[in-house]
């Protein structure tokens, strides 16, 4: 009974996290900030659902555990990939207060790609 109650609470909290993730997605000002909400808060929601599942149902805990670990690895790295992509694309922070990466960024920027596109794009067009 206690366990069940615990599960109910976990599920509610998980649901709340999911909602908050989405609300954050809706309300936060730009891509970088939104990633904090969806990429991680959202993931936390699912993790808690899995915990609840292990608590109340005869589900195999080991599978749930593996899935949780997987989520903990994959969720952040997805956020990282998206953030990097956004930066590469030249999407700017809204009211960013500091950018240490500016100037030292060695990857490709959308800027460079655009240049490439106009000056040598024909070649690429020919090739592909």
């Amino acid at each position, binding site marked *: 009974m206690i366990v*069940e109650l615990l*599960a*109910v609470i976990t*599920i*509610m909290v*998980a*649901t709340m996290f*999911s*909602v908050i*993730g*989405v609300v954050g*997605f*809706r309300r936060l000002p730009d*891509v970088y900030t*939104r*990633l904090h909400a*969806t*990429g991680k808060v*959202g*993931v936390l*929601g*699912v993790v808690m*659902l*899995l915990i*609840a*599942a292990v608590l*109340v*149902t*005869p*589900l*195999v805990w080991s*599978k*749930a555990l*593996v*899935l949780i670990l*997987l*989520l903990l690895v*994959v*969720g952040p*790295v*997805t956020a990282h*990939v*998206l953030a*990097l*992509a*956004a930066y*590469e*694309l030249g*999407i700017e922070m809204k009211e960013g207060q500091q950018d240490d990466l500016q100037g030292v960024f060695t990857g*490709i920027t*959308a800027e460079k*790609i655009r240049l490439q596109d106009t000056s040598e794009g024909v070649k690429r067009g020919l090739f592909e």
Partner: protein
Amino acid sequence: MSTLLIGTLYFSLAVHTLLIGYAVWRMWRGENRIDRLMGFDLIGTLILGVLVLIAMIEETSIFIDVGLGLTALGFVGVVALARYAVAGEVE
């Protein structure tokens, strides 16, 4: 399973399902491509939630297996899409 638990599950299921709808909307009306991609990723995450909830309702871990596949592959998809969004997409 108690009625309370089942009610909670149904509630959560309903919420998650509706959130998926929002995510799709977001994918349609995203600010930029990363935003859309985030929407896509979010759909994956929420679907995983739905799968877990179904697994609880059905009391079977079969759906967890499905979720495992979704998680592993969703990652691959998002990474590939992100790399593409930078280098491949045209205005």
